[in-house]
């Protein structure tokens, strides 16, 4: 991060087990605390439901790009082969639809997957130029990290959150100043 960005105080709870984390998320959300984000070293099944996220719409994106690829391929070949310049190759027809299928299929897959992955990188804010803000370096190794925004103005809020962390089996809790600009997007 080149320019100084404002940091907010977060309450960090670190767990050492994916099942403990899953139960903790359910419990803490059940008590009405708003979880800012959860970081795990691998996909934990059911976590997105526990956090109440809606299903990803990336499959729809893939479909739209796939349909686009399919259309581009068919229009391109029909324009070039049927309308623009008719080449006589062994007297074969000028609109050989079955022969267009292989290239149509390939371009559907190509544009569908590139479009979807491009969207995926964009919505996740992933690019080689990004310097990530890692809460704890072990979150890509063997620790499961939960963060909740601190509320100093509410009395005993922070200590209640820490108590909830401890109660649900967190091995470590701490306050940490984070930019948190790109969390939970």
């Amino acid at each position, binding site marked *: 991060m080149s320019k100084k960005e404002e940091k907010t105080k977060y309450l960090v709870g670190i767990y050492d087990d994916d099942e403990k984390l899953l139960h903790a998320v359910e419990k803490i959300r059940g008590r009405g605390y708003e979880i800012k984000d959860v970081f795990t*070293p*691998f*996909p934990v099944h059911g976590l997105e439901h526990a956090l109440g996220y809606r299903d990803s719409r990336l499959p729809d994106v893939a479909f739209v790009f796939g349909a686009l690829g399919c259309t581009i391929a068919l229009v391109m070949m029909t324009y070039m082969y049927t309308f623009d310049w008719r080449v006589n*190759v062994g007297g074969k027809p000028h609109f050989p639809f079955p022969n267009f299928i*292989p290239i149509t299929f390939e371009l559907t897959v190509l544009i569908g997957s590139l479009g979807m992955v491009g969207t995926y990188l964009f919505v996740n804010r992933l*690019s*080689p130029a990004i310097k990530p803000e890692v809460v704890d370096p072990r979150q*890509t*190794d*063997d620790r499961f990290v939960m963060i909740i925004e601190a509320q100093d103005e509410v009395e005993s809020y922070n200590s209640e959150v820490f108590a909830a962390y401890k109660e649900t089996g967190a091995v470590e809790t701490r306050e940490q100043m984070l930019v948190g600009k790109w969390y939970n997007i």
Partner: protein
Amino acid sequence: MYDSPIRELLITGKKTYAQVTEDICRPIHAKPSKGWLFGFGLSALVMTMGLYFIMRTFLFGIGEWGLNKTIGWAFDITNFVFWVGIGHAGTLISAILLLFRQKWRTGVNRAAEAMTIFAVICAGTFPLLHMGRPWLAYWILPLPNYHGPLWINFNSPLAWDVFAISTYLTVSLVFWYTGLIPDFATVRDRIQNKIGKKVYTALSFGWVGSAKNWQRFEAVSLILAGLSTPLVLSVHTIVSFDFATSVIPGWHTTIFPPYFVAGAIFSGFGMVLTLMVVVRKVLNLQDYITVGHVEAMCKVVVATGMMVGLAYATEFFIAWYSGSMYERYAFLNRAFGPMWWSYWIMVSCNVISPQLFWFRKIRTNMTLVFIISIFVNIGMWFERFVIIVTSLHRDYLPSSWMPTYYPTITDYGILVGMFGVFFTLFFLFCKTFPVIAIAEVKSIMRTSSDTFRDDFVPEEQIPEKVQETVALGVGAPGLVAAHKSPDEPQA
């Protein structure tokens, strides 16, 4: 989730999550070993030799090769189809086995996908070389030009090939890299070296592993798998169309698409076995690429080997049944003509040698698996050689028949050199990338590792009587109940 207590473990050695990271990242942090340096040096040397012969082809043209009057396609297209085929196992493991929820894929998918990409790079070189004027390679694209514009011929399977191979390379690369991003982040957060940190920060694309990231990651992986599965089938189908849509006896057969796809998977698994048996030993990853993994791949080799055998038999039968004398002659000439030896090398390597994998003792003996996998590689190279060269060497006009095919030193040089290119890339991959998908292995640990599966019973410890009931499909209720963890509901 309930898992049978006798279902085999995929990760052994009672690993914790941290140990998994440590084990897989070790080669990246460590200094290159002597074995690696030797292997890399040797491959680079072979690659240089190959590049020399490729340069000769560039400078002096196709005349450097052993092509003759009737044999216009030989080693180049053989190598092309061989390398494309090798690539297919990687996509099969990463995509098709993902759709079928086969957990054993996690141990081998990363390396197999890397193999796919390197193999497709090798494959793509050959059509370019065969163009004669490779600097005009862009003519195969539908680009506007000054001939009218005269577009490419969309009826030609060679034009379809351009789209198929480039799509295959691109999508495989994207699929592979999507999976690599989280693992690069793991390396980034561990590495101490300053330059390394910068490189892996860029490579990891700023991944932090938030719950949303992972949710999208899983969605993308599944859709990419769904797209790659028909893609991999289409690619080799289109490659087989290069032959099947022609009117050459021996090529003009409708069995080619499924036959080629089965052969591609067969040869690809042969190559995966060759690589994995060595990699697990050298990089000390026996706990992740277990004997069970190797066995599973051996079973795929037997199955696809038999499919290939069936295709050989069907081809012969149809040649006779068709009543076409040219078709009959082409096949008899293949098996008993002047190049009979290549046909029988093919049959013995592809159909007979994998039959040894029916025996468990052989499937679990790594030396034998390695040797048989080499036979599979040789056999599949010869399959393409047989299809291409023996079908061409005696055409319709006996006066132009060539006695046999004589490859030149350049042919051999490029054939061997391309293995150098492949292994050089693979050695670099082993040193700098996480060879096993770290995040994916961790995500199956709860169900498939002995860290969490304390109810696991090795097969040899199951009492004989119970084994019988299990084999009969009756199940072993007493055994299951006895070894269940207490928090699981009793069945």
